[in-house]
């Protein structure tokens, strides 16, 4: 403070202090009203930055939990369906045992054959179960009914050209499919142009992995896809990104594929949540038993009244039951893992919520004290302001 105290100085000092205290007061009031420690990012730069990360992590966890929930219902549905299938096989096994004995007659076998047909139909409907419009046991082809009721030899669909292709020429296939499982072959055009200049790449797993790029001109003749199949394009103009695919099926009932469905339940963590129809119901399963084949064979043996053939199915039925039982165990284990993952996620959610709260939320008790202190200061300030000119020489001049 300088030696001379002038009037302006006094006013300015009081007004300046009043503003400072009023600002502090309204800051505290703002926090108290919003119940938040950070009301704009500059209130706490580090905290704001952490909040962005924490809130993102919290949203991630919510998404993971939702995924896990979806997968859990899928798994529960799969498990109960497979258990039912298991029961059907137990039932079929009992019928086979009873009808393979000498006490059974041709007539009883005829009747039981009808029962087995009913079991077969039930099994088919179980294997074609849906959840929310998606087939449970079709691998990743969840929009395709996975099992056909009759046995089918190896076959291929007609080559399909998606509607967005610019090539409009005819695509023809040739050859008999010799592969041992269901595949989708895909031809993707890399460089566009007429058939003499365009190039392509080939995938035998639906487009997941791609072969090397072809040479220009390779599109003119028949293109070997592998497994005995070829595909031929009529003359035309291709554009880069045109896609053609061909579904091929191994002999049997199955029309899905062997791909797993997975969801992410954490950073870089995914969980498989499906059982493919292939591993549960076809000869490509662990025990190598085609469930539908066994039931069909059983039915035929019953109808034909051949006890030896009936007895031959008993072991196979046991094998089929075990095969399905293994997949039930698989769903159980997956559900257990998901449960654990969910618990971990919930815990993480808890601790992140606590951390967010620590940064973001106001300490009400502390703020209330501060408000009281600021009020006193503000009152004192007004008091001083009111008295600022109470004492001057003017009061003493007559």
């Amino acid at each position: 403070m300088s030696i001379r105290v002038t009037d302006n100085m006094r006013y300015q000092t009081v007004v300046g202090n009043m503003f400072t205290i009023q600002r502090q007061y309204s800051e505290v009031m703002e926090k108290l009203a919003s119940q938040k420690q950070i009301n704009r990012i500059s209130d706490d730069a580090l905290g704001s930055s952490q909040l962005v990360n924490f809130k993102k992590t919290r949203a991630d966890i919510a998404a993971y939990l939702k995924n896990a929930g979806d997968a859990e219902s899928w798994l529960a549905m799969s498990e109960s369906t497979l258990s039912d299938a298991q029961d059907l096989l137990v039932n079929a096994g009992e019928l086979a045992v009873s009808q393979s004995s000498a006490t059974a007659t041709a007539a009883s076998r005829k009747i039981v054959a009808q029962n087995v047909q009913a079991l077969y139909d039930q099994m088919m409907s179980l294997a074609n179960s849906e959840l929310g419009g998606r087939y449970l046991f079709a691998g990743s082809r969840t929009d395709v009914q996975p099992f056909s009721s009759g046995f089918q030899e190896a076959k291929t669909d007609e080559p399909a050209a998606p509607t967005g292709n610019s090539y409009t020429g005819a695509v023809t296939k040739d050859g008999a499919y010799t592969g041992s499982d269901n595949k989708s072959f895909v031809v993707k055009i890399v460089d566009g142009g007429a058939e003499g200049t365009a190039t392509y790449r080939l995938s035998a797993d639906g487009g997941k992995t791609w072969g090397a790029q072809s040479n220009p001109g390779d599109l003119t003749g028949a293109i070997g896809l592998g497994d005995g199949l070829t595909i031929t394009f009529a003359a035309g103009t291709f554009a880069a990104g045109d896609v053609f695919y061909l579904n091929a099926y191994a002999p049997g009932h199955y029309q899905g594929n062997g791909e797993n469905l997975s969801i992410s339940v954490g950073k870089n963590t995914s969980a498989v949540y499906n059982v493919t129809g292939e591993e549960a119901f076809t000869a490509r399963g662990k025990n190598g038993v085609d469930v539908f084949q066994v039931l069909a064979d059983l039915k035929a043996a019953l109808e034909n009244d051949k006890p030896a053939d009936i007895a031959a199915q008993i072991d196979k039925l046991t094998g089929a039951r075990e095969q399905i039982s293994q997949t039930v165990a698989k769903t159980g284990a997956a559900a257990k893992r998901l449960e654990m993952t969910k618990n971990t996620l919930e815990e993480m959610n808890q601790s992140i919520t606590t951390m967010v709260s620590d940064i973001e939320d106001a300490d009400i008790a502390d703020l209330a004290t501060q408000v009281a202190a600021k009020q006193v200061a503000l009152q004192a300030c007004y008091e001083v302001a009111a008295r600022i000119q109470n004492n001057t020489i003017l009061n003493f001049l007559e």
Partner: protein
Amino acid sequence: MSISSLLNVSKDAMLSYRLAMDVTGGNISNVNTPGYTRQQAVFAATGKVNAKAASAQLSVKVENIDRMFDGYTEMQIAEQAQKAGAGEAKNDMLARVEIVLDETNGGKLNDVMSRFWSAWGDLAVNPAGGVERDALASVGQEMAAMFNSYGDQLYDLQMNANDTIRNTVADINVYAGEIASLNKEIGRISSTSGEANQLLDKRNEALKELCGLINCQYIEGANNSLNIFLTSGKPLVEGDASYGLVLKKSPVSDFHDVVYQETGEVINPFLTPGKGKLGALLDVRGRVIPEYMASLDEMAGTVMNKLNELHRQGFDAKRNLGGDFFVVVPEGSKNYARDIELNSAILADSGRIAAAATVAGDGEQATAIAALKDELLMNGGQATVSTFYASLIGQVARDVAEAGRNSEYQANLLTQLNNQREGVSGVSIDEEMMNLIKYQLGYNAAGKLCQVVDEMMETLMNMAR
């Protein structure tokens, strides 16, 4: 000394005290005038004393009316006004940037991005789901719109700074002109006896205002003139001439450069960010906001390119290969944040979202895209999109807080210096009252002297009777 000359002494004293009281009255009436400098009558004894000749011809006169003024403090104030002006301007601008990027209440970019990635996760669980596809397209559009809005708002702030720069330059020209014409006036008046006091106060006020606006230096020149120079060395005011600044559209940006009219030289680089409103505005417009914008562009661009790359490898609901998910309009624009948009093909048909890695229609590609949120895509593989954004928010928050603190600090220093100036130049009513009493007493005493002389005269007259 004759008796009659004693009457003259009394007259001198009464006139002097009256003048002093006039000055005091002026001080009292100007107690609240901004920039007013307290004035003081300076008394001086006149005449000579010779005891041998029994002669003492003493009297008084008001020799000068002083302007109570501390040149050093004034210089400090002019310097500090530059810093305070810059601090305030930067704080104002950054507080508005903060509003754009305020993440405290949710519903902003961080939220939308989280929902965007979650929507990809949802689609991965049900790749054929029309609802999931529509939800993803909608949140994708929302995210693009959020980037656009951030970019546009930052650009608007730059434009706003550009307008403020225009007004500031106009103000600078006005003050420079005012100082030049005051220089002329002051030069005309011989300033020794106080006639120029009011003009000097006015010029000082104009100088302080000018210093708040632009980084400059001043020296006092011939004829009491105040010469002001820019840091480029060019004069803004020299004697009674002022030199204007003009704005010229920059060849490299949408904004204006500040140009020294006389030579056409661009003076932007000479305007220090920390001194003067103009320098601070140029810094915010040309460096601070573009840095934030570049970060946003990098984020939007990276998300767009990485996502498109994966999206083009996937298959859509109709088994076509995916196209671009996000595009920039106009094509090839580098202003990713301002120009990013959801591909119109996807907007028209959410079936074009490529969620599948194979023609089987699985959700693997959507899973892969959702996983981008945790990939270290930014800062050369050092940060995820989210942590990059978090550090941008942290950076902005720090800059804003720093600008706020600096502005407050510089304003406090200015207040202190102003108080110091008040201590020298300000009017104290109490002091003026004391002066009034003092001068009134002197005036009364001089009147009494006159009365005494009158009585002495009468005595003389009576002696002759």
